[in-house]
């Protein structure tokens, strides 16, 4: 059974494993939220989840479709205003891990969620920054989850929405950007980590059955595979079952029609 899982499940489970119990995690919606809650329901029951809607210590039983689902409020330790979440909790230095998704990622962990093409004459207008730029800089470290393809892992993004290591090396430090930056990237093919010196994202683990060639082919820059790259342990029975149960509950809840009888 733990043989039969899809790459997205592996990606989410790998990301969940990276969270430690007690971490204070500022969670973006979508894959990051799924991974963070999987961690909470498996190895890290005391992980503290913060959503930008102001929910601190949320413990959703049903995965939220939006960062403001009632499930988050009803399970939170406390709900604060949006200015407070960004001022006291994120900028105030209370967040251990910022957990982000992305539309495009480059080799230095810089994220684009703003635009494809020219800003003033865009080919594709993406949603924009949201909380990401300050999550990326005011969290102690950043995790990123993103499916790996030449469309998403790009050589040169059209826009830097959220700072990774910028041009690499000590560029981030030179610009006095707080926070360590992206320490781990979880894709459907494996795990990438920044080279300690150049800060270039390097494949340090490949998911079971994934070849270096596949990973290189799915990357828009000449991807380096770490010489000691490991194989990601396959999902356990429990990880997989917990993840699938969560998603089933969510799918069922979110397709309910919510028209009020007025």
């Amino acid at each position: 059974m733990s043989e039969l899982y899809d790459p997205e499940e592996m990606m989410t489970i790998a990301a969940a494993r990276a969270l430690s119990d007690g971490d204070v995690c500022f969670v973006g919606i979508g894959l990051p939220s799924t991974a963070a809650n999987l961690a909470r329901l498996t190895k890290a029951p005391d992980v503290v989840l913060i959503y930008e809607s102001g929910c601190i210590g949320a413990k959703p039983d049903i995965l939220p479709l939006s960062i403001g689902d009632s499930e988050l409020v009803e399970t939170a330790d406390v709900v604060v205003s949006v200015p407070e979440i960004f001022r006291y909790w994120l900028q105030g230095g209370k967040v251990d891990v910022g957990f982000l998704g992305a539309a495009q990622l480059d080799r230095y962990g810089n994220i684009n969620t703003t635009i494809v093409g020219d800003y003033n004459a865009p080919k594709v207008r993406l949603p924009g920054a949201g909380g990401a730029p300050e999550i990326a800089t005011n969290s102690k470290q950043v995790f990123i989850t993103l499916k790996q393809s030449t469309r998403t892992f790009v050589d040169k993004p059209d826009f830097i929405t959220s700072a990774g290591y910028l041009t690499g090396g000590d560029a981030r430090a030179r610009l006095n950007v707080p926070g360590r930056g992206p320490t781990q990237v979880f894709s459907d093919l494996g795990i990438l980590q920044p080279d300690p010196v150049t800060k270039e994202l390097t494949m340090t683990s490949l998911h079971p059955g994934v070849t270096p060639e596949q990973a290189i082919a799915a990357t828009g820059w000449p991807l380096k595979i770490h010489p000691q790259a490991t194989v990601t342990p396959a999902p356990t029975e429990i990880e997989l079952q917990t993840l699938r149960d969560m998603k089933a509950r969510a799918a069922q809840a979110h397709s309910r029609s919510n028209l009020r009888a007025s």
Partner: protein
Amino acid sequence: MADITSLSSAVAGLIHDGDKVAMEGFTHLIPHAAGHEIIRQGKKDLTLIRMTPDLIYDQMIGMGCAKKLIFSWGGNPGVGSLHRFRDAVENAWPRPLEIEEHSHADMACAYDAGAAGLPLAILRAHRGTDLPKYNATIREITCPFTGETLVAVPSLRPDVAVIHAQQADRKGNVLIWGISGVQKEAVLAAKRAIVTVEEIVDKVAPRANSVILPHWVVSAVCPVPGGAFPSYALGYSTRGNDFYKRWDAIARDRDSFAKWMTRHVLETKDFAEHTASLSEPAHV
């Protein structure tokens, strides 16, 4: 003391063409009914302000109410793009839309500064990002004590704030509970404020995670049960997640959008009729 009045008269009297209008709501308590009334009354040249423009701003933009959008995240949460917003930005349809783009952090601080009567907000933001290259309102300021370079943004001072809340009492004291987003800041920062509410009660009592807005900071209170749909009001309704998903198909195409807006907004006289119209077999 706030007027307790109909939404149509509040919108007619308090929102003028060309106004800077902040209709806030962070997933929860989004003032959809008020947005529909603005569309029905054909308000024009509005500068729309909102951290998270979603379906209701997609509708207002698609109907040509807006000349400018000040925002920090423009999408259909958990679903994808706002197609009318994209069509306006990418193809200037139905009219060109000027955009002033921020991050959540700087926009939340700009509302906070507006509520605090300050001309600017300062924060640690935007380091290493491209946004300041395209938004001249994001400046730098130096701390006189540490020499640290911080970001300064002008405070937000809307002409009108529009929000939806759970309750108001007969004087117009407003009670919100659950996720309150930046609504309090938006109301305190604005010159005028319209609040649609689920119901009028004899007494509003503060409770866990609640915000009270005294009647003397509110211009008009308008009872509109369910007026946040497809957003929700904690304690009254649940989020229409299904509708958010269905909106993607409706808004993707200009004609289907126009047909939907005509039938479900322009041809309905108020939000009750609108909601009823959504139950028609015709609609999906």
